[in-house]
């Protein structure tokens, strides 16, 4: 048995593993429960053990599940895997290959709407499972040392486990509703973690800002989900048998699968997308108007575009893109390992994951794709420019995350999904390494975060220095490291893919991408140089920095190694079905993006180019990165010391001040959004709540009742003659009424 065969036989048979997929989520959840409820009684070491082993257990299960997705024993190829999971949306012989899935039955249903609790692992979610639990475990391990002296350590580890559980739910979900559960879960856990030191109002505010910004995006996500439900029902009502033939399914089969598994499973949405692209006569396609229902009159393509743009807003909230990126830099208020977890391994990548998962829908709308790419590019550029002038080591890294996510969105928008996911993975490695390295620097320097007051750490913190250097080179895009290949794969794809009718977008985004690459190199080099090189700053808080404990340096080393070796995934070592060389990762993800490829070929909305970058492309990209880095090196090592004591030119100071203040975007939001909303809330509070509800409705009814009661009290005297007088008066009234009636 050679090595390839070894990896094609899962140690646990998929049939056995599939029903246990829920354990991957349940383990960290259980860890969160135990640490949160009993943590204070358990003591420090036990909490560390439980939290770490819960994530480690999830990691082991993830490895097994991931392994099982490539299970091809008994010579039958991928078919073997699917004996127990047939895709109900396809034709009889269409098995889902390279996927491990299990449906735990109805979660809830209302009318003909139905949502199943279904978990699925394919190559896309499998790789994310590994990243989340793997990098997550390293961050847990690191935290055991970093949070050693914190009183709320048990609360911290409970939140951390909760975060991992929510993210695993997000990734494992096989339908949009279950994904939304994880989507909300990470939002809540991030709120808890960012505001972890809640006694400091500024940090509590940062948590709240993240929460509110995320909620805006989540609202858009929900509306988009509802639109998709309506769209699926409109499609099943209007489509004829010919449409289903394109999707490789039959009408009865598709509808019984909908009955069975609900309209929002990703596989079902994929099949609908495939059914929509054929433009033959007498078929439903993207330009067909919807006949009945709430969406009547709109075309399928139009509704799809709107839904995808709303999903983009949702993803912008979670993944910190324009216009909702403002929460992420403030999220630095939380403990540093949390920043690493949120930024690198989990939450912020949710938007990229969502669009990769829905790639089949996204390629139906060039408008949405162009918007995604442009938003990504603009966010990336803006964040990179702000990162130029930040002096807080974590803030620079935070803006760098926003920028790198923007690059991933550029890839998603240009249809080069595999490269976006690859960059997600490599970014998880080197950004986690950078954040944890920054934490180590702070740990050894009395919590100093101002890079102007660090310097010269190279000789004092050797492990931190080495790993930080590797990660910096990786994110900068220096040749043999993974960041170079993943970023270049995206830029190459952006350059060569074309959106139908929007050809200018890919060129514009590509040139912006080059500027971003050079900027990234510049500010990362600046960060590295000011922190580690040169003499030690006179304003340093401690005279000599000390290296951190092994729990902190070991994750750094592992992540640094990973950020080097992950480059292998971008090498064109595999062959595509047409015999051309193909990147390993592209080949690896091709089962996931198969439907997307079929749709782009049929619909011609995107021109996908599968060529591999040439040597010239690599050299060019490398030169761009080197230029940026060299410029920073020149400015900060040679130029500035020579000008020591001389003030910088007025222009440079003005630009720097604007960049330092983040181009006043927060202030702009304050002016055009927050102030009016606050004013409106004030009016509602004073007039509607305090005046109408409290005074008139609540206290008013009580007041009227009391007054009426005290007036009526005088009637209840117990005096029989007074009662008789009332009766007599009533009688008089009756007589008067009768007389009037008679006289008329």
């Amino acid at each position, binding site marked *: 048995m050679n090595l390839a065969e070894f990896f094609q036989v899962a140690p646990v048979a998929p049939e056995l593993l599939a029903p246990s997929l829920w354990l991957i989520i349940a383990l960290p959840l259980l860890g969160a429960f135990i640490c949160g409820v009993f943590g204070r009684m358990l003591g420090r070491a036990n909490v560390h053990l439980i939290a770490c082993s819960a994530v480690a257990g999830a990691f082991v299960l993830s490895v097994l599940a991931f392994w099982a997705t490539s299970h091809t024993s008994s010579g039958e190829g991928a078919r073997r895997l699917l004996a127990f999971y047939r895709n109900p949306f396809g034709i009889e012989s269409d098995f889902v290959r390279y996927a491990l899935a299990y449906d735990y039955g109805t979660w809830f249903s209302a009318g003909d709407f139905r949502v199943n609790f279904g978990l699925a692992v394919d190559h896309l979610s499998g790789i994310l499972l590994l990243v989340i639990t793997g990098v997550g475990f390293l961050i847990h391990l690191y935290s055991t040392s970093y949070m050693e002296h914190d009183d709320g350590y048990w609360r911290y580890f409970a939140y951390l486990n909760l975060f991992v559980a929510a993210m695993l739910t997000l990734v494992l979900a096989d339908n949009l509703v279950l994904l939304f559960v994880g989507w909300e879960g990470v939002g809540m856990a991030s709120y808890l973690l960012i505001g972890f030191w809640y006694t400091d109002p500024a940090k509590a505010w940062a948590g709240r800002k993240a929460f509110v910004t995320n909620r805006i995006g989540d609202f858009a996500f929900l509306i988009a989900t509802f639109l998709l439900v309506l769209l699926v029902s409109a499609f099943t009502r209007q489509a004829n048998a010919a449409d289903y033939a394109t999707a490789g399914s039959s009408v009865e089969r598709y509808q019984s699968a909908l009955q069975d598994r609900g309209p929002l499973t990703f596989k079902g949405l994929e099949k609908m997308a495939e059914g929509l692209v054929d433009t033959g006569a007498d078929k439903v396609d993207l330009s067909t108007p919807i006949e009945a229902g709430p969406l009547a009159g709109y075309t399928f393509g139009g509704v799809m575009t709107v839904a995808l743009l709303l999903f983009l807003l949702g993803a912008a909230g979670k993944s910190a893109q324009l216009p909702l990126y403002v929460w992420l830099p403030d999220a630095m208020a939380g403990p540093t390992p949390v920043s690493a977890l949120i930024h690198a391994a989990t939450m912020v990548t949710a938007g990229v994951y969502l669009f990769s998962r829905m790639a089949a829908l996204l390629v139906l709308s060039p408008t949405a794709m162009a918007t995604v790419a442009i938003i990504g590019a603009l966010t990336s550029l803006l964040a990179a420019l702000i990162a130029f002038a930040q002096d807080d080591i974590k803030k620079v890294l935070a803006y760098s995350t926003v920028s790198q996510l923007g690059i991933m969105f550029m890839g998603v928008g240009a249809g080069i999904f595999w490269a976006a996911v690859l960059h997600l993975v490599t970014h998880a490695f080197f950004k986690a390494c950078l954040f944890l390295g920054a934490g180590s620097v702070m740990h050894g320097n009395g919590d100093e975060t101002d890079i102007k007051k660090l310097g010269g750490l190279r000789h004092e913190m050797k492990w931190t220095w080495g790993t930080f250097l590797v990660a910096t080179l990786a994110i900068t895009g220096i040749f043999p490291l993974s960041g170079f290949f993943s970023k270049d794969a995206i830029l190459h794809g952006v350059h060569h893919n074309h959106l139908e009718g929007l050809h200018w977008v890919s060129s514009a985004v590509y040139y912006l991408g080059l500027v971003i690459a050079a900027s990234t190199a510049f500010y990362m080099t600046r960060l590295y140089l000011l922190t580690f090189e040169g003499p030690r700053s006179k304003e340093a808080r401690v005279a000599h920095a000390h290296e951190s404990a092994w729990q902190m340096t070991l994750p750094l080393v592992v992540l640094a190694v990973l950020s080097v070796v992950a480059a292998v995934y971008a090498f064109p070592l595999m062959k595509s079905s047409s015999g051309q060389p193909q990147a390993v990762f592209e080949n690896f993800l091709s089962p996931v993006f198969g439907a997307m490829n079929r749709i782009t070929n049929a619909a011609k909305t995107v021109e996908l180019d599968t060529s591999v970058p040439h040597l010239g492309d690599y050299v060019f990209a490398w030169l761009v990165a080197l230029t940026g880095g060299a410029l920073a090196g020149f400015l900060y090592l040679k130029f500035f010391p020579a000008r020591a004591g001389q003030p910088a030119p007025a222009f440079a100071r003005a630009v720097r001040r604007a960049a330092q203040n983040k181009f006043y975007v927060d202030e702009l939001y304050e002016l055009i959004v927050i102030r009016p909303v606050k004013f409106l809330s004030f009016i509602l509070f004073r007039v509607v709540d305090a005046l109408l509800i409290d005074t008139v409705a609540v206290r008013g009814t009580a007041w009227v009742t009391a007054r009426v009661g005290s007036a009526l009290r005088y009637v*209840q*005297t*117990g*005096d*029989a*003659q007074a009662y*008789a*007088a009332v009766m*007599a008066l009533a009688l008089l009234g009756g007589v008067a009424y009768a007389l009037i009636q008679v006289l008329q």
Partner: protein
Amino acid sequence: MVPITYYLLLAAALFCMGMFGVLVRRNALVVFMCVELMLNAANLTFLSFARMRGDSIGHVSAFFVIAVAAAEAAIGLAIVIAVFRSRGSVLVEDIRTMKH
């Protein structure tokens, strides 16, 4: 033949006198007598209409009223005597236990 109007006017006058007595007299016994007066005014009305209509419904009603009045007088007098024994007074305005 005396027109029915006179009977009704007489009944109304009797009723008003009875009601006046009920409202203003303080002695419970007098109040009772006034109530009887009102009941008899009603009886007179019944009988007048019975006569006018030429059937016996009014007579039957009058008999019922007399029966009820007799029962009421019996119970009412008993109550008045019981109240007098416990409080030494039959004045209506003194009997206001609900107020306390």
